[in-house]
């Protein structure tokens, strides 16, 4: 791996601290409890999967950890920084990909990337080298001058990943990064995530795809804002007495529906 690779985070963080620690993290919207007191610890360098049905609190959790939402109660630290008090330090240390494509349709691939790289503090030749390396590793070089709005789903997600990792963040938050992306592109996307993880980047990812869940080192199952299970992709089905992760998913959904009825 060269110095300009996608991996090898260099953003300054407290290397001793876990990537994520949450204590009683809670978020309510009026009477609705989106996240009900979450306790979670994610180690450095883990690829951690957050699973659960729509409305189970995955996105709300990520949004609190990235500073987009203010928690109603509890506390959390990301790469050693407190989310309530040290948000600006967190922002320089993390990368984030939202469910919805958040880049500029009317800028080209390279313009979007340059914009984010500059915002993250890269300058001059260092920035241009880093951009070239990212475009190469994500196969985006032939599309550098294409308007982002005209890219198909998989390419958009790669561009979003390039922008989110321009500054080599220590921690990457990916909220359903492969929704609506074809299988080949999904596989390629996960290869890149592994490269990042091998370089020491911690990845917190939410997904609805069970094959992707199986690729994570550890999983957390959320249901109606509560942590239902935590463990490796092998441990989780055993814990619920189900043959696969998918069966766990369906079983939890069934319990949800029964509780709601």
């Amino acid at each position, binding site marked *: 791996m060269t110095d300009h690779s996608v991996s090898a985070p260099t953003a300054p963080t407290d290397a001793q601290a876990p990537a994520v620690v949450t204590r009683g993290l809670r978020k309510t*919207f009026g009477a609705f409890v989106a996240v009900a007191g979450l306790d979670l610890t994610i180690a450095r360098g883990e690829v951690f999967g957050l699973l659960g049905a729509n409305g189970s609190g995955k996105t709300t959790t990520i*949004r609190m950890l*990235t*500073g*987009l*939402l*203010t928690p109603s109660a509890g506390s959390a630290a990301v790469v050693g920084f407190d989310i309530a008090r040290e*948000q*600006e330090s967190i*922002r*320089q240390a*993390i990368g*984030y990909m*939202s469910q*919805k*494509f*958040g*880049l*500029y*349709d*009317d*800028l080209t691939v390279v*313009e979007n990337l*340059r*914009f*984010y790289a*500059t*915002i*993250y*503090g890269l*300058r001059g030749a260092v920035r241009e080298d880093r951009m070239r390396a990212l475009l190469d590793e994500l196969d985006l070089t032939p599309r550098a001058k294409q308007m982002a709005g005209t890219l198909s789903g998989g390419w958009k997600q790669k561009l*979003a990943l390039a*922008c989110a990792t321009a500054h080599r963040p220590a921690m990457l938050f990916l909220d359903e990064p492969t929704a609506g992306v074809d299988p080949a592109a999904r596989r390629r996307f996960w290869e890149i995530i592994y490269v990042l993880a091998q370089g020491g980047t911690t990845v917190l990812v939410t997904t609805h795809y069970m094959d992707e869940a199986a690729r994570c080192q550890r999983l957390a199952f959320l249901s109606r804002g509560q942590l239902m299970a935590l463990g490796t992709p092998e441990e989780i089905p055993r814990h619920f007495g189900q043959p696969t992760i998918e069966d766990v998913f369906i079983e939890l959904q069934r319990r949800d529906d029964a509780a709601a009825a």
Partner: protein
Amino acid sequence: MSVIESIAEWRLWPMLRKEFIQMRRDRLTLAMMVGIPAVQLALFGFAIRTEVRHLPTVVLDESRSSESRSLIAVIRNTGNFDIVGAVQSRAELTNLLASGTAQAAVVIPPEFQSDIKRGRTAQAQIIVDAADPMASSAAIAGASLAGAARGAEIASGRTGRAPPLEVRVRPWYNPAMRTEAYIVPGIIGVLLSLTLLMITSMSIVRERERGTLEQLIVTPLSKTSLMLGKVLPFVVVGYVQMTVVLVLGKLLFDIPIRGSLPLLYLITLGFIVANLGIGLLISTLVGTQVQAMQLGFFMMMPNILLSGFMFPRVAMPEPAQWIGAMLPLTYYLEVLRGVLLKDVGIEYLWRDALILMLFATVLIALSVRRFSKTVD
């Protein structure tokens, strides 16, 4: 973070660069930014004529004398009345006024000349269609003045002495009394406030709607840099619009530019920033571009009606004057007309300039405060 720190902070520059690239690509909006001022200028400038000249006028001259002819000449020379024909009867005259063919009539009775000769007060009548008071007021005033002047002339001719008194009215700053000289400078202000406030608010709300704001919020870009980056390009747009209206106003309407343009451009900065501040404030209040547009239009009415753009503020009831006093446009109009028409300098305009700067500072500070780097 203060504005100065943000400008010094390099993160503002990528924001500016991005905005200019996007602006350049959005050809339609760009065309509208220059096209709308031009069209509005033509609309307002040509259509708004509160003074009416050249009313079509018919004459019922039953005197048919040299005195009646000289009175008609005096009336015609005011420029308010175009003599379009003669009628023979009252009935015919009434007909023409009712149908709108004529909007004024001069009636001179048979004994007009003989009354003058015998030293009696001769009577003549000018009938004006005053259904529209605004259209007829100038003609009415002109007619009375012309009559009085002719009367005084005859009187002094009789006595051989100079008339005892003469009042000369000097319409300063706009001697030809052209409405467009008054309206067109105002259009600069109206246009700037409407378009700037609307594009600013929509430009931020658009980022929120498309989800690009969320991606921006999780970066280390500071709130101040984010907002300045969105707003500063529109300062340039504002100056371009202003220049377009000034140049077209000069070419199409020959509006006077008597005072110092550098002074005008300088004070304009406060006005532009104040309007961008209102736009930013709107963007923190609404969720969609449609709502932003509606609020923008809502701001349009008080700006046009209460700022003194079309109607004099002194004539308004007090509450309307108070609302007018809360609009930056009210003060900017003073500046525009002061510099362009009256050639007055900062010694007369410092108060308005100061108020505009105050508006700008308070509005920007308020919207930066209200803008939250979270989405909840």
